[in-house]
């Protein structure tokens, strides 16, 4: 039985993988833990954040989730730690610390 792409991981036997690695459903990149690539980690100081959301369009990986017009944190499953958010934050609410752990 061939699995859906979202159910294929490094333990999937070859008989259950799609031929040629074809992907039959949309938006499967969300299942890839690109956060594991991180060597530096942005940290959000919620006291300083004014929810101007300037950081959001600058994030190359859509890793700054917004709910009801407010920045609700950092999506560490996908954030690669580039640090652009900290560069563009006018209030010093985002800073980068060394290492991959939040």
């Amino acid at each position, binding site marked *: 039985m061939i699995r859906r792409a979202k159910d*294929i*991981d*490094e333990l*999937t*036997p*070859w008989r259950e*993988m799609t*031929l*040629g*690695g*074809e*992907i*039959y*459903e*949309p938006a*499967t990149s969300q299942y890839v833990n690109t956060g594991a690539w991180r060597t530096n980690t942005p940290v959000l100081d919620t006291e300083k954040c004014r929810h101007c959301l300037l950081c959001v369009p600058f994030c190359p990986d859509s890793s700054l989730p917004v709910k009801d017009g407010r920045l609700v944190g950092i999506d560490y499953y996908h954030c690669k730690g580039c640090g652009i958010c900290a560069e563009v934050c006018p209030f010093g609410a985002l800073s980068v610390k060394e290492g991959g752990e939040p």
Partner: protein
Amino acid sequence: MNYNERLSGNEAIAFAMKQIDPDVMAAFPITPSTEIPQYFAQYVADGEVNTEFVPVESEHSSMSACIGAEAAGARAVTATSSCGLALMYEMMYVAASSRLPITLACVNRALTGPININNDHSDSMGIRDAGWIQIYAENNQEAYDNFLQAMPIGEHPDVRLPVMICQDGFITSHALENITLLDTDSVKAFVGEYTPENYLLKKENPLAIGPYDLGCHYMEHKVQQAEAMKNAKARILEVAAEFEKVTGRKYGLFEAYQMEDADLALVLIGSSAGTAKAAVDRLRKEGVRAGLIKLRVFRPFPAEELAEALRHVKALAILDKAESFSAHGGPLFSEVRAALYDLEPRPRTVGYVYGLGGRDVTPDHFRSVYDRLARIAAGGDLGPVYTHMGQRE
């Protein structure tokens, strides 16, 4: 209905394409395959086919266009030779690993250099490990028949691999021969429609093809390709059986000629088999038990079947129309000889490289090979296993 015509090998392939009426043809001219897109472009201009003809700027692009078209859900074909095939090299692997059953008419020509436009098998042999099915023809009839069988083989869900239909440049591609054609309705019924389960233009089900594989997925996809190539063997025979019902012409993985009681045998590919059969016929008249095997399918390689067919042979020569510069023999020699290794007893085998760059080969050449095999079979020395035939000494 079958009817008789006179066509060159290139005309036969172009005519087969016209009868199939594929969705897309993308091709770039290169000798000696140029006539195939040339004839086909005329069919397009005259409105005789519904095909989208893409006159690309290179063979890298023709294979890329075929990949895009086939992935979109279209049936795509191309034709090429020699350096054109070499320029496709990268995309040939992409087509096979993306499991896109494109059909390529390969008109075999020496791969430069020195630059040469005549026939040998160095172009398709050089790309034998790309994951394409390879089927070779002895003459125009076989080239036409093989092309009609390509799509039912490659497009089958158990296979899903691209197929290369090879014929010898000029010798077959440009020589006019009598040929029996199948009427177009029967061709269309035999070849059928291309109906992939998933394709880029299927709006109900978005598809991504050719994604990046990390080490944790790559090998599994390669095993799938290897399994598909194993499956192809049975499918090739199935399609051949269906083809025989329609045309009366019988095909297998190889043709065994006078092999039932043969003590001395050759294995070779392509048009030279016709010449070698003339040598076999003469030897048979003299009471020599000579035979030959003309390999039709090189990928998948019919190792078990060849071993069975050659089990009783005393001395065997394997003839390559391509160098591999291994300093030990050509690719056909290596693979056939390896296929015989587990036989007990096994034939004594020698290899020849011949016919490079269009070098002529005559029945007398094959006669001298059989003479040597007779000496080996009688207990004589094997001598050097890797030699050339037809060069000036």
